[in-house]
């Protein structure tokens, strides 16, 4: 009997040159986009100035460069870039998790109502003219509460297909929350509140501060823990509930952990930026094309691509028009055609 020892799952796939190169696409794109986005905006900064500023920081001699550049880079752009990275990574990771969990390529982090819940929370906060911090808190709680409700309903209805019940409960609860949301919009002051509501529902990094970012980091860290630790088990979850159980997986507990983790990071991300669609749907697809189906690798690639994509979109949002373009418009306007292109040209990643 010949048993060859192989280094790791996934790596020993028969891969072409493109597949091998695919592993490097995500990190390269990520670094390039981040570097570029520091220079793009109302106040363009050249690569040389950027490099000088970094050297200045490293050596502790910031006097060498224009203080305006210093301020723009470290006080304005850096928080935005970091927030973009964190939020993009969170949305893409949550999308990858939900797509595997529900074995459906059309699933996005919104499937269980987290966005609808967060939206209702935030919009209520705006409607009641609460301070920004409370609006964010309401969004966070709203997102978690919506998913908790969906999960409770799903658990209460015992059928042979727990996954389908969850999805349908998510659709129903989402519709209810959207109805409430519409009601609040109708009641809102059309001159002050409605524009703020609309803006929040389309997402933006413009108002994100270092404090906002710091406030969601614990939630992001906690949410990522089960997703990262259980990454190999996620491959088994994609087999479906019954088969995974027959292989010795405690699916209901794992599903709960994955949903809790993915919901936590989505709610945290959305609470400071507003709803940004399409990242959680699109990025995991691209990641899967680049690195294959193994969830550990898809997760890593999704985090890098998601972060890079949102930072890039944000750079575009602050440079293509006089006013900041809401991110949700750009992610959909760019994401949807690209998604269609993927559908038409490839079936790799999903069969």
């Amino acid at each position, binding site marked *: 009997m010949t048993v060859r020892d*192989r280094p790791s799952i996934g790596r020993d796939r028969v891969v072409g040159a493109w597949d091998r190169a695919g592993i490097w696409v995500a990190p390269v794109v990520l670094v390039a986009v981040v570097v570029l986005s520091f220079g793009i905006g109302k106040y363009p900064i050249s690569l040389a100035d950027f490099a000088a500023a970094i050297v200045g920081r490293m050596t502790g001699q910031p006097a060498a460069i224009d203080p305006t550049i210093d301020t723009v880079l470290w006080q304005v752009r850096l928080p935005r870039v970091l927030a973009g990275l964190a939020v993009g990574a969170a949305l893409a990771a949550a999308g990858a998790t939900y797509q595997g969990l529900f074995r459906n390529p059309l699933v996005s982090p919104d499937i269980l109502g987290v966005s609808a819940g967060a939206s209702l929370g935030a919009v209520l906060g705006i409607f009641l003219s609460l301070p920004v911090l409370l609006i964010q808190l309401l969004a966070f709680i709203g997102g978690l509460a919506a998913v908790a409700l969906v999960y409770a309903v799903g658990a209460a209805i015992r059928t042979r297909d727990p996954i389908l019940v969850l999805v349908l409960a998510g659709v129903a609860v989402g519709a209810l929350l959207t109805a409430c949301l519409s009601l609040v919009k109708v009641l809102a002051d059309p001159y002050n509140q409605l524009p703020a509501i609309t803006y929040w529902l389309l997402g933006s990094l413009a108002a994100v501060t270092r404090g906002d970012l710091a406030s969601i980091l614990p939630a992001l860290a906690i949410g990522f823990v089960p997703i990262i630790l259980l990454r190999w088990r996620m491959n088994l979850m994609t087999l479906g509930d019954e088969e995974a159980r027959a292989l010795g997986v405690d699916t209901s507990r794992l599903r709960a952990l994955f949903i809790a983790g993915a919901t936590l990071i989505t709610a945290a991300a959305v609470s400071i930026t507003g709803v940004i669609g399409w990242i959680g749907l699109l990025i995991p697809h691209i990641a899967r094309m680049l690195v294959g189906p193994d969830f550990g690798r898809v997760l890593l690639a999704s985090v890098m691509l998601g972060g890079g994509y949102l930072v890039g979109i944000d750079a575009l949002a602050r440079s293509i028009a006089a006013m900041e373009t809401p991110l949700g418009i750009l992610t959909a306007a760019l994401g949807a055609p690209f998604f269609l292109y993927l559908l038409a040209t490839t079936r790799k990643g999903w069969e």
Partner: protein
Amino acid sequence: MLAAVDVAFGYRGAPVGRGVTCAVAAGEVLCLLGPNGGGKTTLLKTLLGLIPAQGGAITIDGQALAGFSRPDLARRLGYVPQAHNAFFPFTVRDVVLMGRAARVGLFSAPSARDRDAAHAALHTLGIDHLADRTYTTISGGERQMALIARALAQEPAILVMDEPTANLDFGNQTRVLEQIGRLAAQGLGILLSTHDPDHAFACADRVALLQGGHLIALGLPRETLTADMLRRLYGVDVAVTYLTDVGRYVCTPSFNRSRGKTI
């Protein structure tokens, strides 16, 4: 030894069958036959602990099935579902490796030992060459073999197979049946369901006939699978004869000859 005593099975509010008593010992092949809708799959899933039994007792080596944790159960019972399409294009190697789930730590990835076991399972079935192929692009017969390999990688004592020959061509059906015989010879207890009584003659030590949720017969194939019994089970006329060329009984529908002539 997987044993069921007076088991009632089905779903809450929708019972499928009851009074099922049967057992599979090490090295034994028990073949479950029955018409569509007779409850074969539901019974198999109940015996696997995937659906809670509605009554009676299911035990593994004398211990109640309900007392086992999921991983404990998966180390004793291997499940081979019908060959299906997967959602992600994993390689056959990765699919087989998933059979190690019950032996891999909750937060860990498979170790070198697990990969060895996966390779050994592929080797046992003679499908080493499929290891690097993508599960979603291989044929139905190859997928069935890959799923059997996955169940072997679990290193179970009992293998439960749900219609392992369904949707396979003639050659692949024969290969799977041969494999079942070989695995039983190595000491595995095997419980399988099939639509073809001939398969029971070919590989089973004992055969159980399930109709309307009840076991109507259980015994040696040549004693149990009589023409009368098969007519009762499937509602069609069947001829059962001994073929000296192959040295075993075979059965085939007799296609009601008198009517056949008039058509």
